[in-house]
C-alpha cells in the first residue's frame, strides 16, 4: 500500500482548499505523486483517484494525455533533448547522438544502473538558446558536445 508523505499530504489539503472544484486538483496532485513515487503506475493512479475523489478511469485518461507524467520508471536523471526546429537547426540530432554514445542507450531507455533515462521532447520554449537539454527540472542551454559530456560526468560522480 503506497502513501504520500505528511508534507505531500498537507500540500494536497491546501490545493483542495484553493481550487473551486476537486477535479481541478488532479494535475497538481499528479505532479506531487510523480515527485513522491517517481512515476505514475496504475497503483499510483488509483491512489490519486482516492485522494482527489475522482474515478481511476478519469486519472488514467489524464495521466496518459500529458507527456510529462511518466508511466514507466525513469532513472535518477531524466535527460530530455529538445528536437524541435530551432534546436534542430542548432544541432540537436548531433546532441542526441552524443548522448546515445555517452550513456550507451537509445531514446526511451534507462541505463542498467538506473542513473539515466534518455528521451527526446518537443519544443521546450528556450528556442534562442539551442540546443537545449532538460535534465530533471533544469534547462541546459547552448550545450556543446564537450559540455554535455562534462555535465553527464559531473552527474555520474555526484
Amino acid at each position, binding site marked *: 500500500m503506497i502513501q504520500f508523505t505528511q508534507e505531500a499530504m498537507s500540500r494536497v489539503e491546501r490545493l483542495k482548499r484553493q481550487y473551486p472544484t476537486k477535479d481541478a486538483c488532479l*494535475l497538481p496532485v499528479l505532479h506531487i505523486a510523480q515527485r513522491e513515487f517517481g512515476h505514475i503506475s496504475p497503483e499510483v493512479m488509483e491512489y490519486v483517484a482516492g485522494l482527489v475523489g475522482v474515478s481511476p478511469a*478519469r486519472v488514467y485518461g489524464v495521466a496518459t494525455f500529458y507527456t*510529462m507524467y511518466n508511466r514507466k520508471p525513469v532513472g535518477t536523471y531524466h535527460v530530455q533533448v529538445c528536437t524541435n*526546429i*530551432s534546436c*534542430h537547426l542548432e544541432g540537436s540530432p548531433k546532441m542526441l547522438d552524443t548522448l546515445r554514445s555517452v550513456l550507451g542507450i537509445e531514446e526511451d531507455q534507462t541505463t542498467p544502473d538506473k542513473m539515466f533515462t534518455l528521451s527526446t521532447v*518537443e*519544443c521546450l520554449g*528556450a*528556442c534562442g538558446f539551442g540546443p537545449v537539454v532538460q535534465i530533471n527540472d533544469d534547462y541546459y542551454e547552448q550545450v556543446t558536445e564537450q559540455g554535455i559530456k562534462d555535465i553527464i560526468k559531473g552527474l555520474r560522480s555526484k
Partner: protein
Amino acid sequence: MEQILFKGVEGAKLADVQSYLAIGGYGAARKAVGSMTPGQIIDEMKKSGLRGRGGAGFPAGMKWDFVPKDFKGPRYLCCNADEGEPGTFKDREILEKNPHLLIEGMIIACYAIGAELGFIYIRGEFVKGANVVEAAVQQARSQGFLGDKVFGTDRRVDIIVHRGAGAYICGEETALIESVEGARGNPRVRPPFPAVVGVFKKPTVVNNVETLAAVPSIVNNGGEWYAKIGLPPRNTGTKLFAVSGHVEKPGVYELPMGITLRQLIFEHAGGIKGGRKLKGVIPGGSSTPVLVPEDIDVSMDFDALAKAGSMLGSAAVIVMDESVCMVEQAHRLAEFYAHESCGQCTPCREGTIWQVKILERIEHGNGKQGDVELLGRVSSNILGNSLCPLGDAAAMMVNGFLKKFRNEFLTHISAGRCAVRSVAGGTGAGQKVTINADL
C-alpha cells in the same frame, strides 16, 4: 526606444517585490482598484488598441467587454503561460524576470472583469518560471496586493499558479480551460466562447502573458498614449520578438510593432550567422507560413504579415540559412503536429500522420511522383475542418513550405536525394512519432 515590458529588467532583480516597487510597480493596480471603475479600465484598454499577444491578435479590451455584466456568480481570468509554439520563448522572459508586472496586470484584469480568482497556466517544463512566479504571488499576497482585501479595499483577488504537464494543445484557450479543470486537453466546440462559458462553466477571459503584462502601462499612461506606439491604429504598442535559428544574436527583443523583418534580423539580431546567406524565415512561430529573402521588407504587424501570406502569430522569428534543407524542416515540424494533435477531430488526427508519412519518404529519397500534389491535398483537407487551430497550423505550415520551396521538394523526389545537403536525408529528424495509443 521606450521599453514597456522589459522596463527596468536590465540589471535589476524585479522578481523581488521591493525592486519592483522601487520603479513604481503596483502603482497602476492601486490606481485601477482605488480610483477607476471596471468600465473606465475597459475603455482605456479599447482605446489602447492592444491586440492579444498569444497569436490570434484579438482586441483585448473587446474580449474583456464580452464578459456578461449581469452575470451573478464567479468569473475567472486565465493567464496563458503555456508557451509552446516552436520558436517562441518570449513569455518565459517575463515569467522569470518580471513576474510582478504580470501579476499587476492580472489584478487589474480581474478587477475589470469582476473576477476574484485568476489562474496562471504555466507549461510544466518551466519549473524555474513556476517557482519564480509562485514566490512573487506570495510576496504580493503578503503586501496586501492579492488576497481578501486588495490594496485595503473590499475587493478579493487571488492567483493560483497551475502547472501544465507537457501538452502543446493546452495553449489553445479551450483546451487550457479543460486542463485547468483537471481534464484531458481536448478543445471545446465554440460557441459558446469562454467569455460566456469558460472555466468551471463560468465567464472566463483567457489572455497571454505578454498581453496582461502590457496592461499596467495602459492604466498608468492611458490608452491614447499606448495607441501612439507602433503602427496605429490597428497595430499598436511594443511587441516581444523572439529570434532564434541562424542569427548572430538570438534573443528576445522588445520593439515597436511595425519594424521590418529585415531590421529585426539584420539590425537587432546581428544578421545571419557566419556571414552565410538567408534562405527562409518563419515570422511568427512554427504554425505560420515560411517567407523567403524577397519578403523580408514586410512590416512585423498582424495585417502586413497576413497580406504577405503569413501571420504575426507569436512573433517568433525562426531564421534559416542557405545550408538548411527545407524538406527536412517541414518533416520535423509535421512530426511535431502529429505528436501534439489531441486526436479529437479526424482530419487533424489522420491528416497530420499522412503529412509525416509523405514528408518522411520525400526527405529520405523515396518520394513518388505526385507526392507534392498529394501533400498539398492532404493539407487542404485538414484546413478548416477541425475544432481548434492545431490542424490549420499543420496545414498552413506545410502549404507554406510547398509554396515557397516547391522546387526543392520536387528535386528531392526526382533526384532521390537532397540537393542542399548532398547526402540523402540530411541529418535526419531524430524524433520518432509515437501516436498516442490510448486515444
